[in-house]
């Protein structure tokens, strides 16, 4: 802290002197660097401690045969790529990766479409829209584990609201329908839960974006004869592209690593066929004490996320600049 005023006074002194001595210049540079580094240090320490260390440790574990005993007492052995070979040869783990990519992508699409629709609706100057804007936020405030438990009950075969409502509406096939007894039907229920929870953030972010679009631009487009769809496609969407890009990347990361909803709702799906990579990694590590293999699943998931995120950023970035 004491170096900053010194630097300032040194700077002032140099105005009158024709040429400051080298020592003063050097001190000025040190001062200029010290402050930023000092200010960033706490954040750096926290990031390295909370993100860097676990990341490095997970990558390291994925190359070892660490079990519970090795974790407590040490002594794990390096097994090279064996764990990764197992990830792709084991039927259940391979299926969990496919589930992650397919189901995650569907969730991203669902969330974006629903979020966009809600944002456009809220952007209309309708009476009481502020009330709906607040109401839309509520699902986002519900903890994922609580939401999953609630939706599991809503989709319960005998006591659930969903089956009751469907039967009342005349779909009698849903009497005692067991949503979680099959992979596809379980995914339908989980999809609704995930989208319900994640669309508010997307909707409100897009709403903020929509409100920055100058009305003059839209009016001009209307004068030029553009209908509502063309105004959306040719004016609104390109202007929102940077926001959409960021939101798609966020959603991808969230939806590819969903854990709570799958852990709570898909536990009874026969042969655990609906597990995603995050749940498979947890089960492999903590239920089976195969920490090496579990870490390998986590690393593969990390790489998948990295590839998808880079892909999006490049794709959307390029279109934006063209």
């Amino acid at each position, binding site marked *: 802290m004491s170096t900053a005023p010194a630097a300032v006074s040194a700077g002032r002194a140099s105005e009158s002197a024709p040429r400051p001595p080298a020592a003063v210049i050097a001190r000025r540079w040190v001062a200029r660097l010290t402050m930023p580094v000092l200010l960033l240090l706490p954040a750096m320490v926290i990031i390295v401690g909370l993100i860097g260390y676990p990341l490095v440790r997970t990558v390291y574990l994925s190359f070892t045969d660490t079990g*519970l005993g090795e974790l*407590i007492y040490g002594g794990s052995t390096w097994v090279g790529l064996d764990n990764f070979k197992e990830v792709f040869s084991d039927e259940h783990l391979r299926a969990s990766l496919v589930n992650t990519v397919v189901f995650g992508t569907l969730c991203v699409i669902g969330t974006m479409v629903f979020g966009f629709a809600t944002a456009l609706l809220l952007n209309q100057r309708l009476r009481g829209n502020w009330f709906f804007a607040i109401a839309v936020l509520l699902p986002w405030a519900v903890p994922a584990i609580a939401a999953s438990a609630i939706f599991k009950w809503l989709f319960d*075969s*005998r006591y659930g609201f969903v089956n009751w409502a469907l039967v009342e509406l005349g779909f009698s096939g849903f009497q005692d329908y*067991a949503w979680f007894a099959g992979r596809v039907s379980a995914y339908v229920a989980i999809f609704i839960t995930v989208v319900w929870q994640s669309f508010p953030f997307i909707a409100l972010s897009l709403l903020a974006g929509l409100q920055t679009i100058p009305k003059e631009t839209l009016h001009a487009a209307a004068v030029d004869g553009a209908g509502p769809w063309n105004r959306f496609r040719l004016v609104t969407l390109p202007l929102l592209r940077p926001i959409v890009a960021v939101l798609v990347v966020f959603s991808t990361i969230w939806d590819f690593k969903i854990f709570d909803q799958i852990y709570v709702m898909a536990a*009874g799906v026969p042969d*655990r066929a609906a597990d995603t990579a995050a749940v498979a990694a947890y089960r492999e590590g903590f*239920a089976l004490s195969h920490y090496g293999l579990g870490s390998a699943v986590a690393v593969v998931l990390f790489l998948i996320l990295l590839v998808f995120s880079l892909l999006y950023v490049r794709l959307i970035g390029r279109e934006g600049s063209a």
Partner: protein
Amino acid sequence: MRKFSVAVVGVVLAAVVAACGGSDDQQTGDKATASDKLSGSISVWIMDPGSPKIQSVVKQYGTDFEAAHPGTKVDIQFVPWAQAHDKFVTAIAGGKVPDVAEMGTTWTPEFADQGGLVEQPQISKGDYVSSLVDAATLNGKVYGKPWYAGARALIYRKDMLQKAGVEAPKTWDDMMAAAKAIKSKVGGGVYPVSFTGLSEHMYLPTIWQAGGQIATQDGETWKSALNTPEAAKALDYYASFYKDGLDPKAAVGWEEPDAQTAFANGDVAMLIAGGWTYNSIIATKPDLEKKIGTELAPAGPSGKNTAFAGGSHLVQFQESKNKDLGAAFVDFMLEPAQLNKFTSEIGFLPGTTDGIKASGYLDDPQRKPFAEQLLDHSAVYPPSPKWGGLEGANIFDGEIQKVMKGQSTGQQAVQELAKKMDEEFAG
């Protein structure tokens, strides 16, 4: 928050009891001060079988113990069975273990093998149910003290069976016939059974009932004995109820408590359940007491009606900071007076031989089948350190679910299971 308030209530109650305590409390207090003075605090994990009564009895243990030993604190937490195995693993890996815990008998060898548990020195076999001591033994050393035990028998709705015109089933064939009669005659959306996809203690014993074995000891290691026609037949029998629509469609993804809820709600007529479940059901729905009948588990084609002898040990963890206080609390919980309180209220049999004699179960016609089932018609799973891992991995659940859904046959399932078990036993 909840944990905190429980602790507060405990402390307040302890103070009240200590203040107004008569000569009884004084005596136990004197006994303790005669030996080493106990102090400090311990955390205790107790499994939660969903019975409100077990919580109050165990909380009372903590309160009484604290009152008898001023200056000590016992923090009791309840962990649902379904999450317990994962929680123990996480706790050991993270170094945040409880001092004392109730542990399922099939897990004790596993955690002992990993070096997580303290060896229990004062075990003499005559005092405890011997199969439960065997289940806690690894390489000749005992790592847990048997607390309680139970075996699942059959409970059924007398009114529904009467309506269907059938007697309580005694064999597999009876069971199937009764189920079909209930399906056609009772109505009201009642399902005859709830055989679930996630309750191994319901389906694995059918292998014994069919005359098969689960695993055999082969010197140091174990070998799967599942790849047999008997085991295949057992899984096919179990799954046939689901396939024939005699079992709720959602049951393939149910845990045991889901089946119990369905029975308590009157949606299911017959349930494989232990005495603790029976107690829990009539505690929540007292009017069911007169409607529920009990019977031994149905016998398979071999004539055996074997059920799984389950139960729990009290264990202490190696990384516990206060092993003396932990040991004292374990011994306190195993005192005959405390055990009697427990068994009468909860519906388990004690793990000590004296406790069983004093329980009076064999004189109560409604509860007699549970005691008979445990004493004469029960067996334990292989006490291998690998067994807990097999349970944790849910390998059995996945295969039985596939048979129930018709995606695989009993024969394919036992073949696959035998392969997976042998891999785990060897690895």
